[in-house]
């Protein structure tokens, strides 16, 4: 028996020489174990993310081996740090340039709510301009919390129906953000 940990097989019918399951589950497993993040790091939370990428916490264990600093092939937008109102359109443009399916994680108090910067120049949470899937609390959050947030996104990706992105609810959500 190999000691390599593998993903649990989905529920399905097994017989000699075949295994039948639903496409949703197979695609879900594939997506959730290869989430390629796009780190949008503006402040201290970005430094915590660098620690998360390092060998000790090793975000690569979760299939996030390639942090892509481009929207190309990225699945998960991780916004880490204060987003000023002037930076808002940039975040939105990066989000729009990512291909579906895509998930968004707001890391830390600033990205989630503006944090301590309750002021005229700071966007009070990125959910004012783009939809957010997972919020990670903390100021800044420890790498364990960022990994926990990533695992929450994995859970979302694993259980997402293939047709969710075509649904009227999802289109209405994007329309509410003028995307």
């Amino acid at each position, binding site marked *: 028996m190999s000691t390599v940990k593998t993903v649990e097989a989905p529920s399905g019918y097994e017989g000699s020489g075949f295994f039948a399951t639903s496409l949703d589950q197979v695609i879900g497993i594939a997506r959730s174990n290869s989430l390629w993040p796009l780190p949008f790091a503006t402040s201290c939370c970005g430094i915590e993310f660098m620690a998360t990428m390092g060998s000790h916490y090793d975000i690569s264990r979760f299939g996030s081996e390639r942090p892509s600093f481009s929207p190309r092939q990225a699945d998960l937008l991780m916004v880490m740090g204060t987003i000023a109102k002037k930076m808002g359109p940039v975040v939105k443009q990066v989000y729009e340039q990512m291909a579906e399916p895509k998930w968004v994680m707001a890391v830390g108090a600033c990205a989630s*709510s503006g944090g301590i910067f*309750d002021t*005229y*120049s700071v966007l*009070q*949470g990125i959910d004012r301009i783009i939809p957010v899937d997972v919020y990670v609390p903390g100021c800044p959050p420890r790498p364990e919390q960022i990994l926990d947030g990533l695992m929450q996104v994995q859970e979302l990706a694993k259980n997402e129906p293939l047709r969710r992105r075509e649904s009227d609810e999802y289109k209405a959500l994007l329309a509410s953000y003028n995307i």
Partner: protein
Amino acid sequence: MISHQEIVDELVGHFGTKVTEFEEPHGLLTFVCQANDIIDILEYLKESDRLKFRFLTDITGIHFPDAKGKEFGVVYHLHSFENAVRLRIKVYLSKEDINIPTAVNVYVGANWMERETFDFYGIKFTGHPNLIRILNMDEMDYHPMRKEYPLEDASREDKIDALFGR
């Protein structure tokens, strides 16, 4: 080296009553002048062979809503490397007329400083080549450093005291 007294004597000798209210808070020579004299004074300070204030450290604004007729102000910080001395000039403006001539023709570095002062206080520098916002977003329709706004948005529900244990 040059003493504060020599600077004062030189300025008063040249500008008379146009320069007033000399003081030295924390050892920084400070005086007040009128908006229509500021450019002459800056030019004199820069070109004078004795004073040599060749470096403009900063231009910024001030706002005191309760000071009648002197609600706004522009503060100039000059520095003379050769004499190792600093100087501060204050120009007060009333809220009815917040126009002041630009210093770009004297110090090129004044360009961005005046844009910043306009951005945050709305003080208009007449004759400035490109008086647009420099730090805040262009869509902003107010000048945020004016003391006209509540410190916190009272209508918000997501950052109430209870959430912060206050």
